[in-house]
């Protein structure tokens, strides 16, 4: 997680991240799913060259989504994720290593990542390289004999360029390769309206490129724009566009607003209802043709501040999402499916 954040490090990549502690409550409510819980992150430097971090994240999920209510029974489960990381500065380079473990009753995921950010040309350019490997074990509730592996390899390459005293640009590329059990053991596909087990290919390779521009505007503001293009060997093509604006208000407030639009085409082996039986068949709406629009806002208040010593801030962030599916129907009504979701984060941050 932290390595990933640093993978798009700013213009002063060879600086260690600041010491901080975050305590957060997060919530997602939408489409019959409620997922919430606490999360904590602590980061502390050791001398001028090393910074260590640890995080703990809990998701308590109550799932009555359309997939679940039409093919199974609603359920509750808990996911926990722990991560530890270390950052090391060597001359103009920042080297970050992170190891994490995520576990829920029917799924465990271990991962390790290494990222390097190197300043070049007097700090005008920062180049990032990163690699992650993930080892998942997919299980199935009430079937202890079901255990299948899934491996993931991620390769990252990016560069951030200072354009002017007010403008930055970055270009990031990431390739992800998967091998193993990539389907859901619970989900069903439909063939002439009859449910059959979902079968996904056991390999997938994807590529994504993101162009980002950020600029300082006015006396206390910043604007950013991002565009990501994604494509993979399952024939999904996706575009993500995001625009954001940040503004200091007085000495104690920082407010942000953003909009995000995402759209994708469906996978080769996706169908709402197959008309013939095929080797690979999925009715996973994540692989269908759909779009989602998110509008969000974030406000940060500086509660206590002792310059050059410490600061405590409180933040509230909210995003409203609208998903609209083009070839996935609600089998209860026969109409195209759509839903709204609310995403909330409340957190306190201490920097010291």
């Amino acid at each position, binding site marked *: 997680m932290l390595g*990933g*954040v640093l993978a798009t490090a700013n213009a002063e990549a060879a600086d260690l991240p600041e010491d901080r502690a975050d305590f*957060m409550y997060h919530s997602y409510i939408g489409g019959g799913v409620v997922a919430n819980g606490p999360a904590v*992150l602590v980061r502390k430097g050791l001398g001028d060259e090393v910074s260590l971090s640890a995080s703990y994240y809990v998701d308590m999920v109550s799932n009555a989504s359309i997939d679940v209510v039409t093919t199974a029974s609603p359920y509750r489960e808990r996911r926990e994720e722990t991560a530890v990381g270390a950052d090391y500065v060597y001359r103009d380079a920042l080297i970050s290593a992170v190891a994490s473990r995520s576990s829920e009753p029917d799924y465990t995921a271990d991962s390790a990542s290494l990222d390097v950010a190197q300043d070049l040309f*007097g700090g005008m350019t920062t180049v990032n390289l990163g690699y992650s490997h993930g080892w998942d074990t997919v299980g199935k509730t009430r079937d202890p004999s079901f255990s299948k592996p899934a491996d993931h390899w991620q390769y990252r390459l990016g560069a951030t360029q200072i354009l002017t005293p007010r403008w930055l640009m*970055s270009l990031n590329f990431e390739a992800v390769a998967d091998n193993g059990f990539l389907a859901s053991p619970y989900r069903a596909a439909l063939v002439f309206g009859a449910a059959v087990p979902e079968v996904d290919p056991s390999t997938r390779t994807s590529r994504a490129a993101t162009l980002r521009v950020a600029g300082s505007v006015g006396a206390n503001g*910043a604007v950013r724009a991002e565009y*990501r293009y994604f494509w993979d060997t399952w024939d999904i093509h996706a575009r993500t566009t995001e625009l954001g604006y940040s503004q200091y208000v007085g000495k104690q407030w920082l407010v942000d607003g953003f909009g995000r639009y995402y759209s994708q085409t469906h996978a080769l082996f996706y169908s709402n209802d197959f008309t013939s039986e095929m080797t690979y068949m999925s009715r996973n709406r994540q692989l269908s043709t759909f779009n989602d629009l998110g509008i969000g806002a974030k406000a940060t208040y500086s509660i206590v501040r002792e310059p050059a010593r410490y600061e405590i801030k409180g933040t509230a962030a909210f995003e409203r999402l609208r998903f609209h599916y083009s070839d996935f129907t609600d089998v209860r009504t026969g109409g195209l499916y759509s839903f709204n*979701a609310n995403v909330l*984060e409340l957190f306190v941050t201490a920097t010291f």
Partner: protein
Amino acid sequence: MKAYRIASGSLLAALLLLAGCSVEPWVKPYERERLADPIMKPSRDALADKHHEHVYDVREGARGATGVQGGGCGCN
């Protein structure tokens, strides 16, 4: 994946060589105060960004090149 490893290795070698070059920065260090402001960072709050990324990850088909790494499934 072998090709990626070779490409990554070559890029790392090229970067190390480039690091030795000297290019006159057209934005001097003392002119970078605005760029160093936290509001210019792509990710200011790692935990909140991780949560947002997880929300997108388990519902959208695309992944990667966001600067935030996810973990686990939490799906369905």
